[in-house]
């Protein structure tokens, strides 16, 4: 399966989170996702982009768009070289936060996506991949 479009955006400032959201919305529309799916993937992207910024100390967002059969949709990969997550189960628990948020971003992003994988090494960084298919 080959992505029709593939772009990587930097996340260094809170404005970049808005930019990622807008880019994801554009690509979700291009992939033919419905309004609810668009909103879900954009919201998930917003959560993960802000995590990348706040906890990962900045990183990148890769947006892959699939517009051809057999699968249409978007796949997002957020990567940072921050401190990493020591306890993934805890991080994915509703209501747990090491910062000052609601503690629902990461777990919520998982519920909003069709695919969710997270890989984190303490001291090296975190990579989260999510996808939403039509």
């Amino acid at each position, binding site marked *: 399966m080959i992505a029709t479009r593939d772009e990587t955006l930097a996340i260094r400032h809170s404005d970049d989170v808005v930019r990622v959201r807008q880019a994801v919305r554009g690509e979700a529309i291009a992939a033919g996702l419905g309004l609810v799916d668009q909103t879900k993937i954009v*919201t998930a992207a917003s959560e993960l982009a802000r995590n990348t910024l706040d906890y990962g100390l900045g990183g990148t967002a890769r947006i892959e768009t699939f517009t051809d059969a057999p699968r249409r949709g978007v796949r997002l990969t957020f990567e940072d070289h921050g401190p990493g997550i020591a306890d993934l189960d805890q991080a994915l628990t509703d209501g747990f936060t090491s910062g000052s948020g609601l503690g629902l971003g990461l777990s919520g992003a998982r519920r909003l996506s069709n695919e969710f994988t997270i890989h984190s090494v303490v001291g090296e960084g975190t990579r989260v991949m999510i996808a939403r298919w039509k």
Partner: protein
Amino acid sequence: MDGGLAILARLVETKGDALLTRWRELLLEAGASGGGRIKDAELQKQCREFLQALGTALNAGVDARGVAGPEFASARALLDEVSRSRAAQGFSPRETATFVFSLKGPLFEQLRDQFADDAVTVSNVGWEMSQLIDQLGLYTMEVFQRSREEVVRRQQEEIAELSTPVVKLWNGILALPLIGTLDSARTQVVMENLLQAIVDQSAELAIIDITGVPTVDTLVAQHLLKTIAAARLMGADCIISGIRPQIAQTMVHLGVELDVVSKATLADALALAFQRTGRTVVRKAAKG
């Protein structure tokens, strides 16, 4: 033989006037005055001062840091000013970069004239000169870019203040129509405006309408919850309106619970507010 940069320094010093004249010609040709947005006298002044600063820097000697070194402080300050003023005046990146890059031509011409029979020196010094001007050009672009970003940021701040009006719907009933992105800086303004309006108007109900908010994520939800809690402490209840179906579904998946009464539209919320404050809206009987 002297180093390339020393030769260059002497060139700038001795041929300053010729360089200046030729440089200005090229700048005007290339349209670097931006169609008259920069006065000729000002352009000339910028050119002269830059050549002087460049001469000083070259005489002081360039170290490994290149144009980032202390010798180039005054040249950099000048470029700062040049690119900032151009960014503010809406010049294009090309028009701004041309200021520095078009100096290459005159410098090379002078070099060629002076060492007409020494191709090796011309190419060696020319190469060093070219690298130096490139660095200065890149520096100019960095400053230009930063200045543009500052302009954008300032505009964002202006928009943030403009777009958070608190509207009085009825005695004691306020509405806060939120539009756009709710980043933290803006939410701060929103909260302050609403709380102040609650005091000023002794309001008991505030309707927060989020029809114009494209994405409600956990941060937005958290800001809303905090605003609602603060309003409650001041004796006012909040009603949220304008949650669209797709946003509602997304919020459920996120696991966000807004512990507050919500209505689909602002009209519904106003009807509820009337009801809560003991008012009824009655249609006058149609005549005839």
